[in-house]
């Protein structure tokens, strides 16, 4: 593939890329930057001890701040299921899980949330980690604008 095809005929002004790398060089020249931010004397030594204490004496269980919202999210999802299945079928987490795996709903977040207002929903439990952070965030932002998403689970 020749270079003309590679760039689909687009051109840049002469010396353009040279100019961009010059920008970085110029920044480099002005910043033999000693960090402008400072820390109190002895901070890192003390912090190291504090962090170790924190980790060795941490409480066994930490309350996950998302839990109060989990009920609402679960309610939304159960409602979708109720609309499509007789109640007697909804008797286990396994059912809910398999339903969620099989179905792809086209409902928007707001449509899901409107379903919350129906009172007679009874649900048992849904494992919170089954939902992606993005889904939870979207639902909760719509449900409560003051909501702060707290990340509790990190996978690499």
């Amino acid at each position, binding site marked *: 593939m020749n270079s003309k095809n590679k760039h689909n005929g687009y051109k840049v002004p002469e010396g353009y890329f040279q100019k*961009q790398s010059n*920008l*970085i060089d*110029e*920044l480099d020249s*002005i*910043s033999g*930057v*000693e*960090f*402008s*931010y*400072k*820390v*109190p004397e002895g*901070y*890192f030594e003390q*912090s*190291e001890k*504090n*962090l*170790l204490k*924190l*980790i*060795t004496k*941490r409480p066994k269980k*930490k309350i996950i701040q998302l839990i109060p919202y989990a009920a609402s999210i679960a309610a939304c999802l159960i409602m979708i299921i109720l609309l499509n299945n007789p109640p007697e079928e909804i008797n286990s987490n396994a059912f809910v899980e398999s339903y969620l795996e099989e179905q792809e709903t086209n409902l928007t977040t707001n449509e899901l949330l409107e379903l919350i207002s129906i009172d007679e929903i009874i649900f048992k439990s849904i494992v919170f980690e089954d939902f992606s952070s993005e889904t939870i965030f979207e639902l909760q932002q719509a449900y409560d604008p*003051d909501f*702060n*998403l*707290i*990340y*509790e*689970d*990190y*996978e*690499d």
Partner: protein
Amino acid sequence: MEKQTILVHALQNPKTQEAGFKTLIKEYQQPLYWHIRKIVFDHEDADDVLQNTYIKIFKNIKKFRGESKLFTWMYRIATNEALTFITQKSKKLGLSINEYNENQINQLEADVFFEGDVIAQKLQFAVAKLPEKQRLVFNLKYFEELKYEEISEILETSVGGLKASYHHAVKKIKNELEK
């Protein structure tokens, strides 16, 4: 065995976990602190976020499967924690995130833990004024000299997107420094 693998094994084994954490704190406390500090600006806030970051690292280390580098995983946690901290604090003060960041930048001059020559300060102010994403990319690329691939793992953004952000950031900083 690679150093990271040994450390991860130590961290995931209850018998060696504490020793592993000592190493983790010794090796990464400072880079993580500086990364966080450049997001939240204030020392006390950075200290709080650093603690939260290590708690999250400790809680989640069992889920680390070695599919990314340990340090990029920790940087990702630190970044999320710092951004969450800013969101929460700005809401408490009834400010938008931009307003909150502007306040923080304006307070830098009076901050006893912020000093340096005029040019260094000017550069830090220019960086601080960048939009959040560009500031993160610039800090990681320029100051911490990470590769785009590493930054991509931390910020979960494509390399192409990062390059564009970095390019815009450099241009804005240059303009700001020429004022």
